[in-house]
């Protein structure tokens, strides 16, 4: 069935006509042209299609777009203002925590959710939280370092406020 829905994406209301069978991933990429949301495994295991749903990480590949109305959806495009990089993005760049970068948007959103939930995570908590994001270039050590750099930056920003 076709229906018109309003999706709250990156702080903006998007009114679109979708099919009930459309996944959130399909709508974000094909309709809203948010290319940071990427399909890889298609079964919620790899984290490439991660978005934040009310601040929590979700796999957009197994969510029906029709069931995500009324929630706050954030993709990587919604993190910065477009001119400057978000501090988690900066941390990934400075620690060279990416190679092909296919997995990076998903990782960055997961790190954001992790640090919002647990501002001072243990190594074990970081590993557990990010275990569902796969990097096949295997940059894991660099990614873990980037989390620590982002954590410090977040703390200093909070201190300034």
């Amino acid at each position, binding site marked *: *069935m076709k229906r018109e829905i309003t999706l709250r994406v990156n702080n903006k209301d998007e009114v679109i006509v979708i*099919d*009930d*069978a*459309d*996944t959130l991933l*399909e709508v974000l990429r094909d309709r809203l042209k948010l290319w940071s949301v990427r399909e890889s495994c*298609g*079964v*919620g*295991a790899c*984290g490439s299609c*991660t978005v934040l*749903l009310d601040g*929590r*990480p*979700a*796999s957009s*590949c*197994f*969510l*029906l777009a*029709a*069931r995500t109305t009324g929630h706050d959806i954030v993709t990587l495009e919604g993190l910065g203002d477009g001119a400057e990089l978000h501090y988690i993005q900066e941390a990934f760049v400075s620690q060279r925590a990416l190679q092909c970068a296919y997995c990076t948007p998903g990782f960055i959103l*997961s790190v954001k959710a992790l640090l919002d939930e647990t501002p001072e995570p243990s190594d074990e908590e970081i590993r*557990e*939280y990010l*275990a*569902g*994001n796969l990097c096949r270039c295997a940059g894991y050590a660099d990614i873990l370092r980037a989390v620590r750099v982002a954590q410090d930056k977040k703390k200093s920003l909070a201190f300034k406020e």
Partner: protein
Amino acid sequence: MTIRSFDLLQPRSLAEAITLLVQHGEDARAIGGGTTLIILMKQRALQYRYLVDLQSIPGLNQISKEPEGVRIGALATHRSVELSPVIREALPVVAEAFSRVGNVRVRQTASVGGNLAHADYRLDPPPALLILGAEISAMGPNGARKIPLKDFFRGMYETALEPGELLVDVKIPSMPAKSKAVYLRYSAMSANDWPCLGVAAMVTRENGRCKELRLALGGVAATPVLVNGLTFVKDQLLDEDVMQQILAVVDEQISPFSDLRGSEWYKRQMTQVFIRRAIAQLDSQLIEG
């Protein structure tokens, strides 16, 4: 779109949902969190003309403390169970079992009722819920009924739910006094993979001896297995002799099959290893505590 088109029906009450399911029969399926159903529909392993959305019914995701236990609504997410202060305090083994499913994104979305109704033989929560004597409340065209979880799983991906019947909540009794419980999961492949097997164990002690032992297993038969016939451990010390008897009883009640997570022989061996670990861990906690 990769899923064949369907109509998403969004009832506002359980009664309305049941009416829709009865009306559309095999053309309709209830959808909770959808983590499994959507994937299977994308793969075209399943196809429906109608999905009945249970998320649109208010109040089904509550976790509440009761005089003799905890009640978890069918639409509560795995993550909410894992993080619930009520469950972490009263039933830490339940929080542990739910925290081991998939990854954080899956747990954020997947529902407790969906997990149980899907009845995958490898899932982590059923063994932990079985040793605690959990009971399901279901509602269908013929009204409400209670189903003990041990009678709920009927076969691979098959449950006792009748057509049009919905799982409403699961009630978990409190832990008995002087008891400890643990859930151990063994992954033969990656940490986020389905487990090769899972073992839930609960030991109750009295006067320095075992009063009761409960064991349940996932991944080693077509359904989760609650082990019967363990009453002989009453008033025993859990020493090597008794352990051998326990392992023999368990070995008779499981029927693992060979797959890429291990051969039948391997799963039988690992079952023994993990039962020994679980019991040793509980025994030492009870002696210390």
